[in-house]
C-alpha cells in the first residue's frame, strides 16, 4: 500500500480505528486534540461510540466501564489531563481490564504550556496511579512507529489485561510524516469477547469485576496475579533500537522524539570523529535494562538526553549499575534539544572521561568545551 502523509495525532486515531476500536472517550487538550477530533468525525461513520466527556475524570471512568464490557476502547489526552485520569487508571489496573491510552506530553508542571515535553515519564512508568499499578508503555519516535504501536496495543492490552500507554509528545502529535497504514480489522465479534466481560448474565452465573478486595489475603492474591502478568510483559515485550553501537565507545540514550533527534546528533558527532552509538528504548516500561547493562560494559561513557529534569536517567543508572559514567543533558518546559547542542554534549562527555587521553577517532578533533544551556540540568 502506498504511503500517505499523516499528522501524528490523526494517524494514531486512524490506526486505532483500523485495529477495531469500538469506543473512544476523551476531553480536548492541546497538543493532542486532533486525535479526539478525528475520532469525533470518524467513529460515528463506522457505527462506533465517540463520547466527549465533561472532563478527563468522566472520560477515564467511561473507559473503565467500557473495558469491563469487553469492548476495544481507548482514550487520549495530554499531561494535565492524564493527571486527572490517574485515579481511574489505578482502578482499571486493579480491576484487570484492558484499555489503551495515548499521552501526548506537554510542558509542565501544572498547566505549563503546550510545547513538547517528556515530563510524564515517571507518571506513566512509575506511578500510573496509587497502589502497584503499572502499564505497558511504548514511546514512539516517528509517526509510523506511533501508528504501529497503537494498532498492536489493543491485542497486548487484552492479552495481559492491562493498560497500554503510547507515550508521545507534542512533536509526534503535531508533525506529519509518510505512513503506511495497517489493514482494517473488524471489531470483535460476540464470540471473541473475553470470558470475564460483563455482557449481561442471562442464563449464566454473574461475573464480578472490581478493584475492591477487603481481605488482605484476597487483595494480595489479586496483586500477585497482576504482578505475574507484569512479569510476563517483562519477559516478552521489551523492545529497543540501537544505531551504530557495534564499534561505539560512547553511548547516547534517549527515548521518543529525543531518540530521533539524537540520530541527527549521532551523525554530527560521528563526522567529528566520535565513536558514538545510540540506544533508544522503545518500551520505557518495561525498560530494556539487560541490553543496556551489556552495552554499558563496552562503552567509556553514557549521555542520557531527555526533555525533562532526568527521569529515565534513573532507569539508565540502575541498568548501567556503575559500569560506565552516566551524564545527563535535559531541556525543560517544552524546549526541544537540537542536534548541534547534543553533539556538543557528546564532545564534552568525551573530553571529561578519565584515562588514556581519549581522542576522537578521526581528524584530531579535541572536543568542544562543555556547553550547558541555561535551562539544562546536570545530573
Amino acid at each position: 500500500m502506498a504511503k500517505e502523509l499523516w499528522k501524528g495525532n490523526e494517524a494514531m486515531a486512524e490506526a486505532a480505528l483500523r485495529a477495531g476500536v469500538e469506543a473512544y472517550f476523551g476531553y480536548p487538550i492541546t497538543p493532542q486534540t486532533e486525535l479526539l477530533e478525528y475520532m469525533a468525525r470518524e467513529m460515528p461513520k463506522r457505527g462506533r461510540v465517540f463520547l466527549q466527556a465533561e472532563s478527563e475524570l468522566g472520560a477515564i471512568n467511561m473507559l473503565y466501564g467500557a473495558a469491563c464490557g469487553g469492548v476495544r476502547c481507548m482514550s487520549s489526552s495530554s499531561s494535565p489531563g492524564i493527571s486527572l485520569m490517574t485515579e481511574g487508571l489505578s482502578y482499571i489496573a486493579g480491576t484487570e481490564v484492558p484499555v489503551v491510552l495515548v499521552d501526548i506530553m506537554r510542558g509542565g508542571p501544572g498547566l505549563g504550556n503546550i510545547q513538547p515535553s517528556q515530563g510524564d515519564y515517571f507518571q506513566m512508568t512509575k506511578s500510573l496511579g496509587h497502589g502497584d499499578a503499572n502499564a505497558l508503555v511504548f514511546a514512539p519516535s516517528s509517526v509510523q512507529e506511533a501508528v504501529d504501536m497503537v494498532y498492536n496495543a489493543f491485542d497486548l492490552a487484552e492479552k495481559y489485561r492491562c493498560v497500554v500507554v503510547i507515550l508521545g509528545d507534542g512533536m509526534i502529535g503535531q508533525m506529519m510524516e509518510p505512513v503506511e497504514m495497517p489493514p482494517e480489522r473488524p471489531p470483535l465479534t460476540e464470540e471473541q469477547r473475553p470470558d470475564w466481560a460483563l455482557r449481561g448474565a442471562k442464563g449464566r452465573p454473574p461475573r464480578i469485576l472490581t478493584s475492591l478486595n477487603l481481605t488482605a489475603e484476597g487483595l494480595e492474591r489479586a496483586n500477585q496475579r497482576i504482578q505475574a502478568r507484569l512479569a510476563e510483559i517483562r519477559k516478552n515485550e521489551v523492545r529497543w533500537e540501537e544505531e551504530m553501537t557495534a564499534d561505539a565507545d560512547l553511548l547516547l540514550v534517549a527515548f521518543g522524539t529525543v531518540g530521533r533527534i539524537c540520530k541527527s546528533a549521532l551523525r554530527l558527532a560521528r563526522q567529528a570523529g566520535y565513536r558514538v552509538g545510540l540506544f533508544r528504548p522503545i518500551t520505557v516500561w518495561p525498560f530494556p535494562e539487560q541490553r543496556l547493562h551489556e552495552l554499558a560494559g563496552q562503552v567509556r561513557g553514557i549521555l542520557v538526553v531527555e526533555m525533562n529534569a532526568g527521569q529515565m536517567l534513573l532507569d539508565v543508572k540502575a541498568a548501567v549499575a556503575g559500569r560506565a559514567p552516566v551524564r545527563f543533558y535535559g531541556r525543560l518546559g517544552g524546549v526541544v534539544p537540537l542536534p548541534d547542542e547534543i553533539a556538543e554534549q557528546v564532545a564534552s562527555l568525551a573530553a571529561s572521561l578519565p584515562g588514556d587521553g581519549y581522542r576522537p577517532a578521526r581528524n584530531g578533533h579535541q572536543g568542544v568545551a562543555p556547553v550547558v544551556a541555561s535551562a539544562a540540568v546536570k545530573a
Partner: protein
Amino acid sequence: MHEEIIISGFGGQGALFAGQLLAYAGMEEGKHVTWIPSYGPEMRGGTAHCTVVISDDPVGSPLVRHPSAVIALNLPSLDKYEGLVKPRGLLIYNSSLIQRPVYRTDLRVIPVPANDISVEETARVSENGMGDARLANVVTLGTLVQATGIVRLETVEAALRAHLPQRHLRWLEPNLAALRRGALVVAERVVAY
C-alpha cells in the same frame, strides 16, 4: 540531498499549507520527509511557521536551528530568520510586504512580489475582477522549487491537484498559475550571491 526549509508568515498567509505541499511532493518523489508546524497561541494574528525536511536519508531531527532555505512571507518572519539561514543558503522574501533590504551578504536572496502576483492571478477568475493576496504562499513555493530543484514543479502541481481542499477547488487553476509565476521569478531575475 538533505534540505531543511522554514516557511513563515502571518497566520492565514498559508505558510503551513505551502510546507505541506512541499512535503507531499517530496514524498511522491520517494524522499524522506517531515513537516512540523509551530503550534500554539502565536498562530492567531502573529506569525506561524513550519519546518520541512526533505532528504535522501531517514530524517532524524524534524526541527532545525539553521535552515538551508527560508521563505519569509512577512517582515516579522524576515526579522526572525534572516540571521538563521545557513551561510550560502537561500532566502526568499515577499517583497510586496517587505520594503527593507536584506542585510546578510552570504545568502542567495530572491525577492518575490508575491502578493502582487497573487492579486493578478486571482483577479482573472474572480467575479468582480478584484484579486487578493491569498496565493502568496504558492507563488513563493514556486520560486523555492525552481531555485533549488528540491522537487520538480510538476510534482508540486500534482500535490496541489490532490490536496487543495474541495471547497477551494475553483482556486485550483489560479494556484497552478501562481506556482508557475513564482517559478518564473527565478528565470527573470539575475540572482547574485
